[in-house]
């Protein structure tokens, strides 16, 4: 169980949100939706401990412990180290966690192939396009098989086709080894396609709703007749609130 209790995040005097509380059952995927500047990235930063905060964040009843648990993060700006090649960036994260399984080469190669990175492994980040950087960050997170996965608009710079591939890859992985996940996104469709629950981070009253499509798998959701309808309902709700 993942619990956030009375979380308050500030930058100096400016309060981003105060006393935010919610709970997730084990291995849930939560989509975090909210207007630009509503504090989605700040929420992730508070969870990872980068941002000091008040309140409690508990995984299975214990405060998050980055030592015992693997937390994988795909930051909004990708967070690649410019002096490491694509491959080194991925391997470094694995090395830090000493995930021996992760170094299982065939699996890694499959991951690279699925994300279209195979020909880019020896490149430095500045030689990549925006979408390619984002995919490297995804590869790094997926390779870790983490206990908590945090994605900050991690599919936003990808084109249609590769985005779908990446989302499928994510869900396939998730089905193999389920893990509590927070997906920050602006894309309502993405939220509906990927999540079990949706956190609407509206300025006034944050709201946790259950994804009506939550029980279907990815492909069924894409093809679900109700998708369009649910989408427009959600859109209307969001437009009303923000």
């Amino acid at each position, binding site marked *: 169980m993942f619990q956030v209790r009375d979380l308050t995040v500030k930058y100096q005097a400016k309060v981003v949100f105060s006393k935010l509380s919610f709970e997730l059952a084990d291995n849930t995927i939560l989509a975090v939706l909210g207007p630009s500047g509503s504090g989605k990235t700040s929420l992730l930063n508070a969870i990872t401990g980068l941002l000091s905060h008040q309140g409690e964040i508990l995984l299975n009843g214990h405060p998050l412990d980055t030592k015992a648990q693997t937390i994988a993060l795909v930051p909004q700006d990708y967070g690649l180290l410019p*002096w490491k090649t694509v491959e080194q960036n991925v391997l470094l994260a694995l090395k830090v966690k000493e995930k021996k399984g992760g170094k299982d080469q065939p699996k890694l190669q499959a991951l690279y192939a699925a994300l279209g990175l195979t020909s880019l492994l020896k490149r430095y980040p500045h030689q990549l396009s925006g979408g390619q950087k984002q995919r490297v960050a995804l590869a790094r997170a997926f390779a870790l098989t983490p206990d908590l996965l945090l994605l900050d608009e991690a599919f936003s710079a990808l084109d249609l086709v590769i985005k779908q591939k990446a989302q499928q890859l994510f869900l396939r992985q998730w089905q193999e080894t389920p893990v509590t996940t927070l997906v920050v996104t602006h894309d309502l469709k993405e939220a509906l396609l990927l999540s079990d629950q949706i956190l609407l981070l509206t300025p006034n009253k944050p709201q946790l709703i259950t994804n009506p499509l939550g029980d279907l798998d990815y492909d069924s959701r894409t093809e679900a007749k109700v998708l369009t309808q649910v989408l427009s309902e959600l859109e209307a709700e969001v437009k009303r609130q923000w």
Partner: protein
Amino acid sequence: MVKKFLRLLYALFILHAIWAVAALLVNRPLLPTPWAVYSYFPQLVGLDLWWNIYFSLYRLGWSLFWATVIGVPLGIASVRFPKFGQLFDPLVYFTYPMPKIAFLPVVMLLAGLGNASKIIMISLIIVFQIIIGVRDAVSQVPSSMYQVLEVLHANRWTMFWAVTWPASLAGFLSSLKIALGTAIATLFFTEIYGTQYGMGYFIMDQWNRLDYLAMFGGIIVISVVSFLLFSLISLIEHYCLRWQKDK
């Protein structure tokens, strides 16, 4: 490659042209013309020349080594361990500008007149330049760089090798270049005692004899040697920062 070489020749040409014009204008023995110096040069080249270079390089090498070994960790620690930094920074601000030369008697007392005291003196002077250079470079590293690894609970060692070091390497090499220049300058105050060898000794000795031809010969030797050392650092820089741009 050829182009680089041509540029070098061009630079040398300009330097010598300026020198020649200045020498002709000044027209005194204290600034001899390039041709006078070069025609005198063969008399200087002998076994001693190589020993002079050898001893100076030996002292420079060890000084740079110690200054790096001491200065880099301190510079990094003063940023990465803020508690330490808060106490260490004022110490640096007080001690850096202290006239190290005034401690020469103390150093001599403790380390004698040989190479040890010279190396200590040079290190003492340049270690601060390295500390400040590294410190300022490390403090420029954006904290978000550390984020992804911090979340993975990387130990300090990994953090250092993966982020801090590469991010501040450019600053370190820049300060190493500056320190090298300073170290060479200090040869003129450290090689005048307790030795008969060294490029600094040679130049000061010729100065005392008012033998300006030999002195300028020595200056040329030291400039060439230093140029080679500088080029070496630039080469390392080029290699280590190859991830930056496609030059």
